[in-house]
């Protein structure tokens, strides 16, 4: 098996002009991931800037209501409000050691863009973030946050105007400026070595969980549940447990409005559950496509899960049966958003709400066991406007029905 592959998944399906940059990145990563100076500096940033380690919190009220022990891995408490900074600090530091001057990034919900802006501002990079025009609109506070920290935000008007198009545009920028620029991919997607690098930087989540759960419970959890769009928080928390076969791993995809596909779009974002093999943005993975191989637009209430592909390693782990892909729909995610806010005083990101929703749905079935860890990948402040609008729409609808 080639090093760039996970079984039949992965690879480097990119324009020729990017191949040297990928090789350069892989060589640099191989060198610095063992370098004591690099590791010490990364450790410093993780502790002092990102605020690690994050708590593994016992959600007592949620546990009581659903009858199993539920822990939340509080990545929402990482600086910036999501797990994304783990990766941007790692890659930005790597880019610094490589002598690059400029960082570019794509962003969906704006979380990765914000985390890139933070790392860039702190380490002195010029930075530009590509964001689908539709996402710019639904997450405009994040746009302002990025701009405050000195990043330029480019609204992408092509295609479906969401994450996939932002990645396309970032790739085009990189093709043009490859000599002085590092493309800081925000998830475990894209060509090798990105899925490996992002997974490694995010694995800090799972490594901490391993120690914390042993301390608190004296054993590993029965299940770990994490939302998966591209899959970076999922791979980050799953990866240290891959060899611990007794721990069940559940990537929860966005079921959107319903698990159906029209000619032009999928009404969901569940590439693992409902996609097919294909090549998207540099990797052989599971994707949402039509019968000819044109990429379908995806759909989800959460911008961060709204993506037509998924990381190749996650596709591989699903293929060999090591992880069990599942999905919850928009309504279930929203319900979990309210439930966790009310029960625990923690407002989860709509992305993370998918993981919470799956646990709420499955707790009673026994499938998850008695001890579950949920990756609470981000906080929900960024989603308040979205949720508020949905609530208004819902109330308007109900009002109409009542007056009939």
């Amino acid at each position, binding site marked *: 098996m080639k090093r760039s592959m996970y079984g039949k998944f992965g690879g480097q*399906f990119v*324009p020729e*002009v990017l191949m040297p940059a990928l090789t350069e990145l892989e060589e640099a990563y191989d060198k610095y991931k063992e370098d004591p100076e690099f590791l010490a500096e990364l450790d410093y940033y993780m502790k002092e800037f990102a605020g690690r380690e994050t708590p593994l919190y016992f959600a007592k009220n949620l546990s009581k209501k659903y009858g199993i022990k539920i822990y939340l891995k509080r990545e929402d408490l990482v600086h910036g409000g999501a797990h994304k900074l783990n990766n941007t600090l790692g890659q930005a530091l790597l880019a610094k050691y490589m002598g690059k001057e400029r960082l570019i990034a794509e962003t969906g919900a704006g979380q990765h863009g914000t985390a890139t802006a933070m790392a860039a501002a702190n380490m002195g990079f010029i930075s530009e973030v590509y964001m689908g025009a539709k996402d710019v609109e639904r997450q405009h506070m994040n746009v302002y946050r990025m701009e405050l920290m000195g990043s330029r935000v480019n609204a992408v008007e*092509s295609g479906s105007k969401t994450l996939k198009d932002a990645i396309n545009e970032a790739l085009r920028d990189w093709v043009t400026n490859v000599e002085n620029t590092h493309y800081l991919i925000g998830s475990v997607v894209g060509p090798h070595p990105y899925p490996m690098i992002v997974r490694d930087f995010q694995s800090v989540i799972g490594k901490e969980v391993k120690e914390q759960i042993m301390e608190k419970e004296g054993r590993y959890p029965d299940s770990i549940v994490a939302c998966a769009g591209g899959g970076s928080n999922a791979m980050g928390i799953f990866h240290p447990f891959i060899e611990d076969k007794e721990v069940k791993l559940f990537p929860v995809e966005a079921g959107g409005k319903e698990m159906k596909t029209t000619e032009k779009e999928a009404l969901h974002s569940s590439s693992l559950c409902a996609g097919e093999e294909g090549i998207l943005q*540099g990797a052989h993975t599971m994707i949402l496509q039509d019968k000819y191989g*044109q990429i379908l637009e995806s759909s989800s209430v959460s911008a961060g899960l709204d993506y037509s592909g998924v990381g190749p390693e996650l596709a591989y782990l699903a293929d060999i049966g090591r992880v069990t892909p599942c999905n919850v729909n928009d309504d279930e995610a929203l319900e979990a958003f309210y439930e966790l806010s009310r029960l625990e005083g923690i407002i989860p990101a709509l992305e993370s709400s998918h993981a919470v929703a799956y646990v709420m749905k499955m707790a009673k079935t026994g499938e998850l066991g008695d001890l579950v860890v949920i990756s609470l990948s981000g906080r929900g402040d960024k989603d308040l406007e979205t949720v508020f609008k949905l609530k208004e729409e819902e109330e308007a609808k109900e009002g109409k029905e009542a007056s009939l």
Partner: protein
Amino acid sequence: MRIAEKFAELEKKKEKVLITYVCAGDPSAEATKDIVHALVKGGADIVELGLPFSDPVADGPTIQAAATRALAAGMTPDIYFEMAASIKEDVPLVCMTYYNLIYKRGTEKFAKDCAESGITGIIVPDLPAEESDELHDACKKNGVDLIFLITPVTTESRMKNTLEKTSGFVYIVSRLGVTGERVDVADSTKKILGRIHTDVPKAVGFGISNQKQASEVIKAGADAVIVGSAFVSIIASGDNVNERVEKLASELKEGCKE
């Protein structure tokens, strides 16, 4: 017609080769046939027919927009091959598309469909030599050339491997970036041609849009020039398209004779 035959034919005439690109189905399959006719009448020696993909990462705004228009107008691989089969011009046709459309159809079937519809070359901008074994075999079996790209940042070791695999011609990207019209081409072309040693014809593309540039590229030592976005821009304008396409092709062809 095979690509090598065309290069041999023109070598006898002491002419260099003009390769032109259009996106199939922009604005319709019928219109594309007329445009190809105009291109050949003007002097195009080889025609690249783009098969539009929803996510064309190697293309700039001009060709992206063309792909979007073509897809909206209903272009599919099935219609594409039918259309290609109905083109009876005396030039090699080359398919340019992204790998997922090939993968989804099946590499073997895709290469066979090309051969059966008169397409004798394939260019896949998101398929580097390292990932190309399957398609390379399928192309070889079906008598279709698989054409690879070389860029200014391609390393010596990768260049050797890529040149061994390419057939028909090698597509040389003279500068970094996506497709689109640019200004200076002479220096960058000279620089990269100096590094490439092969018997396969050297075609230079990206950023060539007028006769002067075509002539500069030929003088710098290229065997062929590739022009895409300039034609696509004319097609996008919808204004007197066939006549203007023919005129531009004939000017560019003059540049290949100087």
